[in-house]
């Protein structure tokens, strides 16, 4: 096994460095040491490192020069491989494992490095993926693989593959033999130049896709992050020097080099002028920058000529002899997962190793909301709070990774390039193609992040292909599924039937089924004809409790003049919207100071209502109950804080669903201390305690519904008491932590069983 020396160069980024060191404790490959090279720092970096005394090798670099810092790390390295990572990056769990695999199985490779993903929610992108560069300074878009834009164009030149400085590894002896990094490159181009030099010296430089690093760029002395305010002249000096040196030594085309330098300087000057026009920089800064640009250009060319004149070809450097100091210790294995952006982690003391879980959800907040995506988002937060590493795989237009709400969110695009025989069944065709794309992506996540278990909702069956492949244990979380919905809305199409059957197959191929209520468990037996001995475990959904001051119990001492009844859910038959419509006039006959607020998208097309009546739900209501219209407001789809405000400001929550596997909406209302009314159907009775936290009525019974609404609206005391009892019930049983604990138990059981087998 190869020994690794991880070298981190840092200046004034104590927080980022701390996050990186915490993240390194999660590496699956243990045979590595950490060398931190600290430049002339002004912040508390050195204090931060005291915590790691005895575990890391600390070196001071007298000047702010990245190449010099890298060389100091190289000389001090006691490992066979020197791996460089930026202080504002986080490696994937198998980073060193993958690098070790590459160096072990490919003895000719002298240098390698994996992809780099920018994961900040403000600017997610693939930052580097198999880069390609030439010594005349030309490069293809390093965010795409070089294999994607072959054959290379332009004037036949010496193209070479390159890594990004954030994520690169070298055989130590090779790097020493070529003289390490050229210290004229103070900040940029060091990674490019070394790749060119190694290739020119006959070594194999081969970046790879795996061994990912997640980058969260922070500001430094040379750049203000997420702006264009950067000391571009450092770039100019490096680019000029690089291209001139290689022109002089390798006799590349002078015209190309001139073109490239003109482009670099020209674009920098344009940028400064634009920044000045936008009032981001002052006039003196503008002139100063231009002066520095010209100075950098001159210095770059001068240094290159000097190099040629004195034939100062890099000579081998000698490394120090130091003993290898392993970074990992006993406590490393039970460290909770870390948020790479905030640097925070769960305040828990773990006994067992944290899990690495993938949650699948085709839709995911904040871009797309639905019941499944919201519950997945809440679960991710809960699992992170318990110390686990969570990855969410969702659909996106392009492949990106972001980190928020305690999870790495991977956006996976898909094309309709598979399952051609199913084209005439468009829903199935799309879903299977997406499921296959997810499966391919999961195989990459196994390689990089060592994921252990996949959790998929039954809805849209994202994890179908993975479950069938048996590549990973798959936990299926059934919610109200297609088969139930098609029965409720009476859709007898063949595609709906087939969807139901495929759902059944997913359940049969699941490693375990995690049902969110007893009702779901029962429905699984009834609807999908599962065997009684099928492995189904129970857990309860939960939500993040609102702060106490955000709750709005009913002010029974001073009731409002107009009472508000809130409905949240899609406008469709299954959600009981027609029953609510029928109940509204009955309520208004007895209580006049009431308004109904109906929130949710109209689903009349999909549930067949439009076909039957030729109208959508709001139009239907307006036509059939014109006298009630002034009392009812249809707000359409509302999510996030606006929805929370509606929950806060209502006095009673009503959702007469004909079936809910669980009913997240009820606990959302209970969160703000609101009484609720639901039906005795599905999992609702497990949430709503009839006569304690609200009322339950029979499904398809508008009369009962109206009576329950009237009885509560007429009793301010009950509105208050039911609301408060609901809030307490939520805190006792239905928080995101309860939900995560329930599923953690299931995941651990599955993994334990696999280990035993």
């Amino acid at each position: 096994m190869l020994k690794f020396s991880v070298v981190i160069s840092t200046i004034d980024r104590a927080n980022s460095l701390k996050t990186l060191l915490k993240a390194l404790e999660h590496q699956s490959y243990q045979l590595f040491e950490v060398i931190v090279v600290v430049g002339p720092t002004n912040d508390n970096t050195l204090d931060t490192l005291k915590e790691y005394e005895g575990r890391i090798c600390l070196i001071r670099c007298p000047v702010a020069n990245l190449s010099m810092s890298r060389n100091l790390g190289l000389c001090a390295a006691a490992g066979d491989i020197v791996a460089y990572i930026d202080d504002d990056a986080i490696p994937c769990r198998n980073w060193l494992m993958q690098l070790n695999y590459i160096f072990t199985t490919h003895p000719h490779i002298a240098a390698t490095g994996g992809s780099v993903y920018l994961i900040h929610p403000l600017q997610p992108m693939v930052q580097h993926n198999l880069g390609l560069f030439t010594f005349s300074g030309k490069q293809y878009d390093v965010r795409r693989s070089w294999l994607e834009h072959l054959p290379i164009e332009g004037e036949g030149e010496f193209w070479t593959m390159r890594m990004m400085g954030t994520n690169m590894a070298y055989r130590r002896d090779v790097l020493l033999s070529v003289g390490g990094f050229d210290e004229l490159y103070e900040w940029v181009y060091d990674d490019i130049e070394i790749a060119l030099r190694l290739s020119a010296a006959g070594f194999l430089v081969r970046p790879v896709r795996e061994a990912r690093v997640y980058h969260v760029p922070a500001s430094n002395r040379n750049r203000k992050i997420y702006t264009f305010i950067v000391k571009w002249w450092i770039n100019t000096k490096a680019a000029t020097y690089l291209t001139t040196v290689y022109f002089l030594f390798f006799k590349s085309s002078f015209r190309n080099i001139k073109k490239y330098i003109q482009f670099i300087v020209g674009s920098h000057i344009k940028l400064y002028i634009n920044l000045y026009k936008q009032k981001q920089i002052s006039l003196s800064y503008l002139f100063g920058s231009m002066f520095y640009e010209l100075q950098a250009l001159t210095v770059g060319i001068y240094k290159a000529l000097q190099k040629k004149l004195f034939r100062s070809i890099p000579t081998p450097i000698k490394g120090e002899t130091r003993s290898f100091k392993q970074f990992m210790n006993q406590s490393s294995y039970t460290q909770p997962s870390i948020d790479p952006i905030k640097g925070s982690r769960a305040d828990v003391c773990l006994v067992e190793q944290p899990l690495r879980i993938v949650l699948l959800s085709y839709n995911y907040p904040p871009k797309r909301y639905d019941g499944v995506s919201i519950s997945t988002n809440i679960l991710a937060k809960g699992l992170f709070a318990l110390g686990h590493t969570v990855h969410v795989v969702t659909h996106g237009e392009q492949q990106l990774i972001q980190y928020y709400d305690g999870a790495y969110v991977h956006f996976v695009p898909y094309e309709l390039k598979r399952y051609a025989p199913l084209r005439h069944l468009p829903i199935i065709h799309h879903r299977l193609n997406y499921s296959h794309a997810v499966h391919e992506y999961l195989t990459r996540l196994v390689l990089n992040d060592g994921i252990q278990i996949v959790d998929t909702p039954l809805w849209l069956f994202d994890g179908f292909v993975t479950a069938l492949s048996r590549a990973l244990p798959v936990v299926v979380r059934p919610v109200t599924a297609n088969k139930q919905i098609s029965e409720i809305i009476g859709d007898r199409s063949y595609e709906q039937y087939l969807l139901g059957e495929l759902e059944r197959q997913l359940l049969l191929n699941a490693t375990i089924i995690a049902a969110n209520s007893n009702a779901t468990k029962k429905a699984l037996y009834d609807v999908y004809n599962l065997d009684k001995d099928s492995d189904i475990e129970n857990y309860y959904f939960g939500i993040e409790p609102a702060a106490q001051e955000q709750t709005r119990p009913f002010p029974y001492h001073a009731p409002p003049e107009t009472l508000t009844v809130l409905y949240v859910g899609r406008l469709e038959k299954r959600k009981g919207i027609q029953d609510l419509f029928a109940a509204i006039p009955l309520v208004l006959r007895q209580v006049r100071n009431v308004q109904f607020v109906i929130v949710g998208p109209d689903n009349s097309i999909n549930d067949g209502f439009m076909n039957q009546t030729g109208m959508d739900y709001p139009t239907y209501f307006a036509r059939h109950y014109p006298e009630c219209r002034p009392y009812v407001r249809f707000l359409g789809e509302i999510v996030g804080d606006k929805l929370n405000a509606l929950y806060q400001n209502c006095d009673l929550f009503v959702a007469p669903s004909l079936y809910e596997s669980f009913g997240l909406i009820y606990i959302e209302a209970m969160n703000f201390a609101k009484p609720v009314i639901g039906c005795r159907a599905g999992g609702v009775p497990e949430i709503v305690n009839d006569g304690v936290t609200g009322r339950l009525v029979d499904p398809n019974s508008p009369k009962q519904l109206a009576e329950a609404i009237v009885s509560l609206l007429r009793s301010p005391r009950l509105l208050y008491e039911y609301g408060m009892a609901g809030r307490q019930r939520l805190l006792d049983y239905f928080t995101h932590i309860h939900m995560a604990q329930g599923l953690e138990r299931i995941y651990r059981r599955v993994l334990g069983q696999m280990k035993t087998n």
Partner: protein
Amino acid sequence: MTQRITVEDVLKLIEFELAQQSLSQDNIAEAIQRLHKFQTYWYSEILNKGRAPKIENVVHALFNANQTMLMLIQTMNIKFEATQLELARLKQFIASRIVGDQGENRGEGNELNLSDISYIKDSLNSINQSLLNVNPSYNLDIQMRYSSFPIIGALLNRLRIAFHRLVYFYISKHINNQNSINEIYKRQIQELVYLNLEYMNRLQALAKKVEELTKKENK
């Protein structure tokens, strides 16, 4: 009458797609395809009637194609070596399992020679040598203007044609040289692809054997 697709059909399709996926895990095949298109494009550019491309552009295109092929060969070679190692590892594993099994079906006689890949390296070296011998700095304009000057014009034209023929002679030599390099590249890529496939098949067979042995052991 068309037959309805059943659940079993869908499951079979998924199984098929999963099997396909194991064969095309990267886009090297696609890159080769793109290279092929590129070559065809330049071929037609050179031979088409109308304004011919500049000789400089042709040389650049040839070099880029060579560079691309070199990188593809390198990539394939790396994959090939990894497959070899995996094969050797599996072979060792199986050998250790069947030592007590009267050594049946070891199939050593028809194995490919794993250690001898020197010919690929030799070929790569010869390509590098050939590349070094080609001077990329041609800067020749092959377009010719005919002189209509009385008496001397005809002589001038003759001289010009002679000179151009001379240039063409070297160009065609150069192109021939490039073509031979391309041929070697192509052969090597094909060879590597073939060997990789062959090894993949053998790996699958060995993996199957391991599975059988494990089952046997469990019994």
